[in-house]
Protein backbone atom coordinates (compact mmCIF):
# COMPACT_ATOMS: atom_id res chain seq x y z
CA UNK A 1 0.00 0.00 0.00
CA UNK A 2 1.17 3.49 -0.73
CA UNK A 3 1.34 5.28 2.61
CA UNK A 4 2.46 8.78 1.71
CA UNK A 5 1.99 10.55 -1.61
CA UNK A 6 3.89 13.75 -2.25
CA UNK A 7 2.39 15.40 -5.31
CA UNK A 8 4.01 18.30 -7.19
CA UNK A 9 5.20 20.21 -4.15
CA UNK A 10 6.47 23.71 -4.89
CA UNK A 11 7.64 26.14 -2.25
CA UNK A 12 8.65 29.77 -2.60
CA UNK A 13 10.11 31.95 0.10
CA UNK A 14 9.09 35.57 0.13
CA UNK A 15 10.92 38.60 1.36
CA UNK A 16 10.15 42.25 0.60
CA UNK A 17 12.79 42.38 -2.09
CA UNK A 18 12.55 38.96 -3.66
CA UNK A 19 10.80 35.68 -4.14
CA UNK A 20 13.11 32.69 -3.81
CA UNK A 21 11.99 29.33 -5.13
CA UNK A 22 13.10 26.63 -2.69
CA UNK A 23 11.39 23.47 -3.91
CA UNK A 24 10.32 22.83 -7.48
CA UNK A 25 7.73 20.25 -8.43
CA UNK A 26 8.73 17.45 -6.11
CA UNK A 27 6.74 14.21 -6.26
CA UNK A 28 7.41 10.81 -4.76
CA UNK A 29 5.62 7.96 -3.00
CA UNK A 30 6.45 6.04 0.14
CA UNK A 31 5.21 2.48 0.59
CA UNK A 32 3.88 1.37 3.93
CA UNK A 33 6.66 0.22 6.25
CA UNK A 34 9.31 1.64 3.97
CA UNK A 35 12.31 3.65 5.13
CA UNK A 36 13.00 6.49 2.73
CA UNK A 37 15.82 8.99 3.02
CA UNK A 38 16.12 12.40 1.41
CA UNK A 39 19.69 13.55 0.77
CA UNK A 40 20.90 16.74 -0.81
CA UNK A 41 23.37 19.59 -0.41
CA UNK A 42 22.92 21.70 2.72
CA UNK A 43 20.45 24.52 2.36
CA UNK A 44 18.61 22.83 -0.51
CA UNK A 45 15.31 22.73 1.34
CA UNK A 46 15.26 19.17 2.71
CA UNK A 47 14.01 20.29 6.09
CA UNK A 48 11.44 22.56 4.45
CA UNK A 49 10.10 19.53 2.62
CA UNK A 50 9.86 17.61 5.89
CA UNK A 51 8.02 20.49 7.54
CA UNK A 52 5.57 20.52 4.64
CA UNK A 53 4.93 16.79 5.02
CA UNK A 54 4.41 17.32 8.76
CA UNK A 55 1.81 19.97 7.99
CA UNK A 56 3.76 22.68 9.79
CA UNK A 57 4.20 24.73 6.60
CA UNK A 58 1.70 25.08 3.77
CA UNK A 59 3.38 24.62 0.38
CA UNK A 60 2.94 27.20 -2.37
CA UNK A 61 1.59 24.46 -4.59
CA UNK A 62 0.97 20.73 -4.42
CA UNK A 63 -0.51 18.32 -1.93
CA UNK A 64 0.42 15.67 0.61
CA UNK A 65 -1.76 12.60 1.00
CA UNK A 66 -1.33 10.22 3.90
CA UNK A 67 -3.35 7.06 3.46
CA UNK A 68 -4.68 5.60 6.65
CA UNK A 69 -6.67 2.49 7.51
CA UNK A 70 -8.10 4.16 10.51
CA UNK A 71 -9.32 7.73 10.24
CA UNK A 72 -10.93 7.66 13.65
CA UNK A 73 -7.69 8.27 15.54
CA UNK A 74 -7.70 11.74 17.03
CA UNK A 75 -3.92 11.97 17.12
CA UNK A 76 -1.72 13.36 14.45
CA UNK A 77 -0.68 10.67 11.98
CA UNK A 78 2.79 12.21 11.88
CA UNK A 79 5.58 11.82 14.41
CA UNK A 80 8.52 14.19 14.17
CA UNK A 81 12.04 13.72 15.49
CA UNK A 82 14.50 16.57 15.66
CA UNK A 83 18.24 16.98 15.35
CA UNK A 84 18.42 17.68 19.07
CA UNK A 85 16.30 15.53 21.35
CA UNK A 86 14.28 18.54 22.60
CA UNK A 87 13.48 16.83 25.88
CA UNK A 88 12.09 19.16 28.52
CA UNK A 89 14.72 19.50 31.25
CA UNK A 90 12.18 20.24 33.96
CA UNK A 91 10.22 17.03 33.38
CA UNK A 92 11.19 13.47 34.28
CA UNK A 93 11.71 10.94 31.49
CA UNK A 94 8.27 9.53 32.24
CA UNK A 95 6.57 12.94 31.98
CA UNK A 96 8.55 13.68 28.84
CA UNK A 97 7.36 10.58 27.02
CA UNK A 98 3.78 11.22 28.14
CA UNK A 99 3.86 14.82 26.88
CA UNK A 100 2.09 14.14 23.59
CA UNK A 101 -0.67 12.20 25.31
CA UNK A 102 -1.06 14.97 27.88
CA UNK A 103 -1.43 17.58 25.15
CA UNK A 104 -4.14 15.43 23.56
CA UNK A 105 -5.85 14.77 26.92
CA UNK A 106 -5.39 11.04 26.38
CA UNK A 107 -3.55 9.83 29.47
CA UNK A 108 -5.56 6.63 29.89
CA UNK A 109 -4.40 3.46 31.60
CA UNK A 110 -4.20 1.72 28.22
CA UNK A 111 -1.99 4.39 26.74
CA UNK A 112 0.19 4.54 29.85
CA UNK A 113 0.68 0.77 29.67
CA UNK A 114 1.69 1.01 26.05
CA UNK A 115 4.28 3.71 26.76
CA UNK A 116 5.49 1.74 29.76
CA UNK A 117 6.04 -1.30 27.55
CA UNK A 118 7.95 0.82 25.05
CA UNK A 119 10.23 2.07 27.82
CA UNK A 120 10.70 -1.45 29.17
CA UNK A 121 11.49 -3.01 25.82
CA UNK A 122 14.06 -0.33 25.02
CA UNK A 123 15.75 -0.46 28.42
CA UNK A 124 14.68 2.95 29.66
CA UNK A 125 12.07 1.98 32.26
CA UNK A 126 14.53 2.13 35.16
CA UNK A 127 15.35 5.72 34.21
CA UNK A 128 11.72 6.88 34.21
CA UNK A 129 12.15 9.09 37.28
CA UNK A 130 15.43 10.59 36.10
CA UNK A 131 15.70 13.95 34.46
CA UNK A 132 17.07 14.30 30.91
CA UNK A 133 20.35 15.89 32.04
CA UNK A 134 21.25 12.66 33.84
CA UNK A 135 21.12 10.64 30.60
CA UNK A 136 23.68 10.27 27.83
CA UNK A 137 23.10 11.75 24.38
CA UNK A 138 22.22 8.40 22.88
CA UNK A 139 19.73 7.54 25.60
CA UNK A 140 18.13 10.96 25.31
CA UNK A 141 17.61 10.45 21.59
CA UNK A 142 16.00 7.07 22.33
CA UNK A 143 13.68 8.74 24.85
CA UNK A 144 12.82 11.31 22.18
CA UNK A 145 11.88 8.50 19.80
CA UNK A 146 9.65 6.85 22.39
CA UNK A 147 8.02 10.22 23.12
CA UNK A 148 7.19 10.34 19.40
CA UNK A 149 5.99 6.72 19.31
CA UNK A 150 3.73 7.29 22.34
CA UNK A 151 1.11 8.85 20.07
CA UNK A 152 1.29 5.84 17.69
CA UNK A 153 2.02 7.91 14.59
CA UNK A 154 1.69 6.14 11.26
CA UNK A 155 4.52 8.03 9.62
CA UNK A 156 7.79 9.05 11.27
CA UNK A 157 9.69 12.07 10.04
CA UNK A 158 13.33 12.26 11.12
CA UNK A 159 15.13 15.55 10.60
CA UNK A 160 18.87 14.76 10.77
CA UNK A 161 18.18 12.89 13.99
CA UNK A 162 21.76 11.85 14.72
CA UNK A 163 23.84 14.79 13.58
CA UNK A 164 24.12 16.33 17.07
CA UNK A 165 25.74 13.15 18.43
CA UNK A 166 29.40 12.14 18.44
CA UNK A 167 30.44 9.62 15.79
CA UNK A 168 30.50 6.49 17.95
CA UNK A 169 27.14 7.20 19.61
CA UNK A 170 25.79 8.06 16.23
CA UNK A 171 26.56 4.65 14.72
CA UNK A 172 25.22 2.83 17.75
CA UNK A 173 22.05 4.85 18.09
CA UNK A 174 21.24 4.68 14.41
CA UNK A 175 21.37 0.90 14.80
CA UNK A 176 19.05 1.00 17.79
CA UNK A 177 16.63 3.48 16.26
CA UNK A 178 16.53 1.43 13.07
CA UNK A 179 15.68 -1.66 15.07
CA UNK A 180 12.90 0.11 16.97
CA UNK A 181 11.40 1.55 13.80
CA UNK A 182 11.42 -1.83 12.05
CA UNK A 183 9.94 -3.58 15.09
CA UNK A 184 7.15 -1.02 15.38
CA UNK A 185 6.66 -1.26 11.60
CA UNK A 186 6.63 2.47 11.00
CA UNK A 187 6.79 4.17 7.65
CA UNK A 188 9.72 6.57 7.89
CA UNK A 189 11.06 9.54 5.99
CA UNK A 190 14.50 10.74 7.07
CA UNK A 191 16.35 13.85 5.99
CA UNK A 192 20.14 13.70 6.21
CA UNK A 193 23.26 15.09 4.60
CA UNK A 194 25.24 12.00 5.59
CA UNK A 195 25.32 9.68 2.58
CA UNK A 196 26.60 6.64 4.52
CA UNK A 197 23.90 7.03 7.12
CA UNK A 198 21.24 7.20 4.42
CA UNK A 199 22.54 4.06 2.69
CA UNK A 200 22.90 2.12 5.92
CA UNK A 201 19.32 2.70 7.03
CA UNK A 202 17.12 3.17 3.96
CA UNK A 203 15.12 1.10 1.53
CA UNK A 204 15.01 3.99 -0.89
CA UNK A 205 16.91 7.25 -1.27
CA UNK A 206 15.86 10.32 -3.17
CA UNK A 207 18.43 12.95 -4.08
CA UNK A 208 17.60 16.64 -4.27
CA UNK A 209 19.61 19.22 -6.22
CA UNK A 210 20.81 22.61 -5.08
CA UNK A 211 18.22 25.30 -4.54
CA UNK A 212 15.73 25.52 -6.15
CA UNK A 213 15.60 21.83 -5.32
CA UNK A 214 14.32 19.34 -7.85
CA UNK A 215 14.30 15.57 -7.43
CA UNK A 216 17.30 14.40 -9.45
CA UNK A 217 17.42 10.71 -8.64
CA UNK A 218 15.44 8.02 -6.92
CA UNK A 219 17.46 4.96 -5.89
CA UNK A 220 16.01 1.74 -4.48
CA UNK A 221 18.56 -0.05 -2.34
CA UNK A 222 18.89 -3.82 -2.26
CA UNK A 223 21.08 -5.65 0.23
CA UNK A 224 21.47 -9.32 0.84
CA UNK A 225 19.69 -10.84 3.84
CA UNK A 226 22.74 -11.06 6.10
CA UNK A 227 23.33 -7.28 5.98
CA UNK A 228 20.29 -6.77 8.17
CA UNK A 229 21.23 -3.82 10.34
CA UNK A 230 22.83 -0.43 9.58
CA UNK A 231 26.22 -1.31 11.08
CA UNK A 232 26.47 -4.54 9.09
CA UNK A 233 25.29 -2.87 5.94
CA UNK A 234 28.31 -0.62 6.03
CA UNK A 235 30.37 -3.75 5.27
CA UNK A 236 28.22 -4.88 2.35
CA UNK A 237 30.07 -5.01 -0.98
CA UNK A 238 27.50 -2.86 -2.78
CA UNK A 239 27.60 -0.16 -0.05
CA UNK A 240 30.51 1.51 -1.89
CA UNK A 241 28.66 1.26 -5.19
CA UNK A 242 25.65 3.08 -3.87
CA UNK A 243 27.87 5.60 -2.12
CA UNK A 244 29.71 6.44 -5.32
CA UNK A 245 26.48 6.68 -7.28
CA UNK A 246 24.97 9.20 -4.84
CA UNK A 247 28.27 11.05 -4.48
CA UNK A 248 28.43 11.53 -8.25
CA UNK A 249 24.86 12.75 -8.45
CA UNK A 250 25.40 15.28 -5.67
CA UNK A 251 28.66 16.58 -7.10
CA UNK A 252 27.41 16.66 -10.66
CA UNK A 253 24.88 19.14 -9.44
CA UNK A 254 27.05 21.17 -7.11
Amino acid at each position, binding site marked *: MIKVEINNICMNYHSLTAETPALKDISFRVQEGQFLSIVGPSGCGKSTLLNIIAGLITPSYGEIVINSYDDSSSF*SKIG*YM*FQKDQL*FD*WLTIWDNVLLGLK*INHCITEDNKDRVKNLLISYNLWEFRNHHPRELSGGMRQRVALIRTLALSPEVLLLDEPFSALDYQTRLNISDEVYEIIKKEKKTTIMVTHDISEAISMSDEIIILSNRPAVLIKDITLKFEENFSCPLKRREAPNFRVYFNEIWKELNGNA
Partner: protein
Amino acid sequence: MLNQSDEHKIYVKNVKKENYSIILTRIVILIAFFCLWEIAGRLKWIDPFLTSTPSKMYKAFIQIYVEGTLLSHIFITCFETIIGFVLGTILGTFIAVLLWWSEFVSKVLDPYLIVLNALPKVALAPIIIFWVGNGIKAIIVIALLISIVVTIISVLNGFKEVDVDKIKLLKTFGASKLQILTNLIIPASIPTLISALKINVGLSWVGVIMGEFLVAKNGLGFLIIFGGQISQLDMVMMSIVILSILAYVMYEMVAFFERKVVIKNK
Protein backbone atom coordinates in the same frame (compact mmCIF):
# COMPACT_ATOMS: atom_id res chain seq x y z
CA MET B 1 41.53 2.93 47.57
CA LEU B 2 42.35 4.04 51.11
CA ASN B 3 44.89 6.39 49.67
CA GLN B 4 42.35 7.90 47.32
CA SER B 5 39.80 8.50 50.07
CA ASP B 6 42.51 10.19 52.16
CA GLU B 7 43.25 12.42 49.23
CA HIS B 8 39.57 13.23 48.96
CA LYS B 9 39.36 14.02 52.67
CA ILE B 10 42.21 16.46 52.34
CA TYR B 11 40.54 18.04 49.34
CA VAL B 12 37.24 18.48 51.20
CA LYS B 13 39.09 19.85 54.22
CA ASN B 14 40.91 22.40 52.08
CA VAL B 15 37.73 23.58 50.37
CA LYS B 16 36.00 23.98 53.73
CA LYS B 17 39.01 25.77 55.14
CA GLU B 18 38.96 28.23 52.27
CA ASN B 19 35.22 28.88 52.69
CA TYR B 20 35.67 29.54 56.41
CA SER B 21 38.52 31.94 55.81
CA ILE B 22 36.44 33.85 53.24
CA ILE B 23 33.59 34.30 55.75
CA LEU B 24 36.01 35.12 58.56
CA THR B 25 37.77 37.77 56.46
CA ARG B 26 34.44 39.33 55.59
CA ILE B 27 33.51 39.64 59.26
CA VAL B 28 36.92 41.02 60.15
CA ILE B 29 36.61 43.69 57.44
CA LEU B 30 33.17 44.68 58.74
CA ILE B 31 34.33 44.95 62.36
CA ALA B 32 37.53 46.77 61.37
CA PHE B 33 35.52 49.25 59.32
CA PHE B 34 33.22 50.11 62.23
CA CYS B 35 36.11 50.25 64.73
CA LEU B 36 38.09 52.57 62.49
CA TRP B 37 35.02 54.72 62.00
CA GLU B 38 34.51 54.96 65.79
CA ILE B 39 38.18 55.74 66.50
CA ALA B 40 38.40 58.30 63.69
CA GLY B 41 35.31 60.03 65.06
CA ARG B 42 36.54 60.11 68.67
CA LEU B 43 40.01 61.33 67.77
CA LYS B 44 38.45 63.99 65.51
CA TRP B 45 40.20 62.74 62.38
CA ILE B 46 36.78 63.17 60.87
CA ASP B 47 33.94 65.43 61.98
CA PRO B 48 31.46 63.20 63.89
CA PHE B 49 28.67 65.67 63.19
CA LEU B 50 28.97 65.00 59.45
CA THR B 51 29.90 61.32 59.50
CA SER B 52 28.36 60.18 62.78
CA THR B 53 30.01 57.28 64.62
CA PRO B 54 28.81 53.73 65.35
CA SER B 55 28.29 54.57 69.02
CA LYS B 56 26.16 57.62 68.18
CA MET B 57 24.21 55.55 65.69
CA TYR B 58 23.63 52.99 68.41
CA LYS B 59 22.36 55.73 70.73
CA ALA B 60 19.99 56.99 68.03
CA PHE B 61 18.86 53.43 67.50
CA ILE B 62 18.10 52.92 71.22
CA GLN B 63 16.32 56.29 71.38
CA ILE B 64 13.95 55.50 68.53
CA TYR B 65 13.52 51.98 69.77
CA VAL B 66 12.51 53.25 73.21
CA GLU B 67 10.06 55.64 71.59
CA GLY B 68 8.56 52.47 70.15
CA THR B 69 8.32 53.62 66.53
CA LEU B 70 11.36 51.85 65.04
CA LEU B 71 9.69 48.52 64.37
CA SER B 72 6.71 50.15 62.70
CA HIS B 73 9.09 52.19 60.47
CA ILE B 74 10.91 49.02 59.47
CA PHE B 75 7.72 47.06 59.03
CA ILE B 76 6.06 49.65 56.80
CA THR B 77 9.10 49.94 54.53
CA CYS B 78 9.43 46.17 54.21
CA PHE B 79 5.73 45.84 53.54
CA GLU B 80 5.81 48.44 50.76
CA THR B 81 8.87 46.85 49.20
CA ILE B 82 7.48 43.32 49.23
CA ILE B 83 4.14 44.45 47.77
CA GLY B 84 6.05 46.50 45.18
CA PHE B 85 8.26 43.71 43.90
CA VAL B 86 5.67 40.97 44.07
CA LEU B 87 3.13 43.10 42.18
CA GLY B 88 5.81 44.26 39.74
CA THR B 89 6.84 40.68 38.99
CA ILE B 90 3.30 39.31 38.69
CA LEU B 91 1.84 42.17 36.63
CA GLY B 92 4.98 42.43 34.50
CA THR B 93 4.89 38.70 33.75
CA PHE B 94 1.19 38.89 32.96
CA ILE B 95 1.73 41.73 30.47
CA ALA B 96 4.70 39.82 28.99
CA VAL B 97 2.37 36.85 28.42
CA LEU B 98 -0.09 39.10 26.58
CA LEU B 99 2.70 40.50 24.41
CA TRP B 100 3.99 36.98 23.69
CA TRP B 101 0.49 35.94 22.73
CA SER B 102 0.03 38.63 20.10
CA GLU B 103 3.07 39.43 18.03
CA PHE B 104 1.16 42.33 16.48
CA VAL B 105 0.52 44.01 19.82
CA SER B 106 4.11 43.33 20.82
CA LYS B 107 5.44 45.01 17.66
CA VAL B 108 3.07 47.98 18.05
CA LEU B 109 4.01 48.57 21.67
CA ASP B 110 7.76 48.11 21.22
CA PRO B 111 8.72 51.83 20.92
CA TYR B 112 6.44 52.74 23.82
CA LEU B 113 8.14 50.17 26.02
CA ILE B 114 11.53 51.56 25.05
CA VAL B 115 10.48 55.09 26.01
CA LEU B 116 8.92 53.93 29.28
CA ASN B 117 12.07 51.98 30.09
CA ALA B 118 14.30 55.01 29.46
CA LEU B 119 12.06 57.41 31.38
CA PRO B 120 13.08 57.93 35.02
CA LYS B 121 9.86 56.73 36.64
CA VAL B 122 10.45 58.91 39.71
CA ALA B 123 9.65 61.87 37.44
CA LEU B 124 6.07 60.63 37.47
CA ALA B 125 5.89 60.69 41.27
CA PRO B 126 4.22 64.13 41.65
CA ILE B 127 1.46 63.05 39.26
CA ILE B 128 0.99 59.75 41.03
CA ILE B 129 0.64 61.50 44.37
CA PHE B 130 -2.20 63.53 42.86
CA TRP B 131 -3.83 60.46 41.38
CA VAL B 132 -3.73 57.96 44.23
CA GLY B 133 -3.25 60.23 47.23
CA ASN B 134 -0.46 61.24 49.53
CA GLY B 135 0.32 57.97 51.30
CA ILE B 136 1.31 54.37 51.15
CA LYS B 137 -0.56 53.76 47.89
CA ALA B 138 1.56 56.33 46.07
CA ILE B 139 4.75 54.71 47.39
CA ILE B 140 3.70 51.26 46.22
CA VAL B 141 2.72 52.59 42.80
CA ILE B 142 6.13 54.27 42.40
CA ALA B 143 7.91 51.05 43.42
CA LEU B 144 5.71 49.09 41.03
CA LEU B 145 6.33 51.46 38.13
CA ILE B 146 10.08 51.22 38.57
CA SER B 147 10.12 47.42 38.41
CA ILE B 148 7.32 46.60 35.98
CA VAL B 149 8.84 47.83 32.70
CA VAL B 150 12.12 45.98 33.25
CA THR B 151 10.13 42.87 34.15
CA ILE B 152 8.05 43.04 30.96
CA ILE B 153 11.11 43.44 28.76
CA SER B 154 13.28 40.79 30.40
CA VAL B 155 10.51 38.20 30.76
CA LEU B 156 9.32 38.72 27.18
CA ASN B 157 12.90 38.23 25.98
CA GLY B 158 13.06 35.04 28.04
CA PHE B 159 9.86 33.81 26.38
CA LYS B 160 11.24 34.54 22.95
CA GLU B 161 14.47 32.64 23.64
CA VAL B 162 12.65 29.32 24.00
CA ASP B 163 13.91 26.95 21.29
CA VAL B 164 11.65 27.17 18.22
CA ASP B 165 12.05 23.43 17.66
CA LYS B 166 10.45 22.79 21.06
CA ILE B 167 7.46 24.88 19.95
CA LYS B 168 7.44 22.94 16.68
CA LEU B 169 7.47 19.67 18.63
CA LEU B 170 4.36 20.67 20.57
CA LYS B 171 2.70 21.74 17.33
CA THR B 172 3.30 18.28 15.86
CA PHE B 173 1.45 16.96 18.93
CA GLY B 174 -1.41 19.28 17.98
CA ALA B 175 -0.94 21.65 20.93
CA SER B 176 -2.96 24.88 21.17
CA LYS B 177 -1.29 28.19 21.90
CA LEU B 178 -2.46 28.03 25.50
CA GLN B 179 -0.96 24.55 25.87
CA ILE B 180 2.32 25.78 24.40
CA LEU B 181 2.29 28.58 26.97
CA THR B 182 1.57 26.42 30.01
CA ASN B 183 3.55 23.32 29.03
CA LEU B 184 6.61 24.96 27.55
CA ILE B 185 7.00 28.74 27.62
CA ILE B 186 6.34 29.32 31.31
CA PRO B 187 8.24 26.34 32.77
CA ALA B 188 11.16 27.00 30.42
CA SER B 189 11.25 30.64 31.61
CA ILE B 190 11.34 29.95 35.37
CA PRO B 191 15.05 30.94 35.61
CA THR B 192 14.27 34.20 33.77
CA LEU B 193 11.34 34.87 36.10
CA ILE B 194 13.52 34.36 39.16
CA SER B 195 16.25 36.63 37.87
CA ALA B 196 13.53 39.24 37.21
CA LEU B 197 12.44 38.78 40.82
CA LYS B 198 15.99 39.37 42.02
CA ILE B 199 16.32 42.58 40.00
CA ASN B 200 12.92 43.74 41.20
CA VAL B 201 13.89 43.42 44.86
CA GLY B 202 16.61 45.99 44.29
CA LEU B 203 14.45 48.27 42.16
CA SER B 204 11.61 48.15 44.67
CA TRP B 205 13.89 49.42 47.42
CA VAL B 206 14.78 52.36 45.19
CA GLY B 207 11.11 53.04 44.47
CA VAL B 208 10.00 52.73 48.08
CA ILE B 209 12.73 54.95 49.51
CA MET B 210 12.14 57.57 46.79
CA GLY B 211 8.43 57.40 47.49
CA GLU B 212 8.98 57.78 51.22
CA PHE B 213 11.23 60.79 50.63
CA LEU B 214 8.35 62.43 48.82
CA VAL B 215 5.23 61.50 50.72
CA ALA B 216 5.73 59.42 53.82
CA LYS B 217 5.08 60.10 57.43
CA ASN B 218 6.75 56.88 58.46
CA GLY B 219 9.17 54.31 57.13
CA LEU B 220 12.97 54.25 56.86
CA GLY B 221 12.95 56.67 53.92
CA PHE B 222 11.02 59.09 56.10
CA LEU B 223 13.57 58.66 58.92
CA ILE B 224 16.38 59.45 56.50
CA ILE B 225 14.81 62.60 55.08
CA PHE B 226 13.53 63.73 58.50
CA GLY B 227 16.91 63.14 60.12
CA GLY B 228 18.48 65.24 57.38
CA GLN B 229 16.03 68.06 57.91
CA ILE B 230 16.67 68.28 61.65
CA SER B 231 20.45 67.81 61.18
CA GLN B 232 20.36 64.44 62.98
CA LEU B 233 22.88 62.65 60.79
CA ASP B 234 23.15 59.88 63.41
CA MET B 235 19.57 58.97 62.63
CA VAL B 236 20.24 59.10 58.87
CA MET B 237 23.28 56.84 59.10
CA MET B 238 21.53 54.41 61.39
CA SER B 239 18.59 54.16 58.99
CA ILE B 240 20.93 53.50 56.10
CA VAL B 241 22.65 50.69 58.03
CA ILE B 242 19.28 49.09 58.85
CA LEU B 243 18.26 49.48 55.22
CA SER B 244 21.43 47.70 54.07
CA ILE B 245 20.75 44.81 56.43
CA LEU B 246 17.13 44.52 55.27
CA ALA B 247 18.08 44.65 51.59
CA TYR B 248 20.64 41.92 52.15
CA VAL B 249 18.19 39.70 54.05
CA MET B 250 15.52 40.13 51.38
CA TYR B 251 17.98 39.30 48.61
CA GLU B 252 19.07 36.18 50.47
CA MET B 253 15.42 35.16 50.86
CA VAL B 254 14.89 35.36 47.09
CA ALA B 255 18.16 33.50 46.51
CA PHE B 256 16.97 30.79 48.91
CA PHE B 257 13.67 30.58 47.01
CA GLU B 258 15.65 30.32 43.78
CA ARG B 259 17.71 27.40 45.08
CA LYS B 260 14.50 25.63 46.15
CA VAL B 261 12.89 26.04 42.74
CA VAL B 262 16.02 25.18 40.80
CA ILE B 263 16.56 22.03 42.84
CA LYS B 264 12.93 21.08 42.26
CA ASN B 265 13.51 21.57 38.53
CA LYS B 266 16.57 19.36 38.60
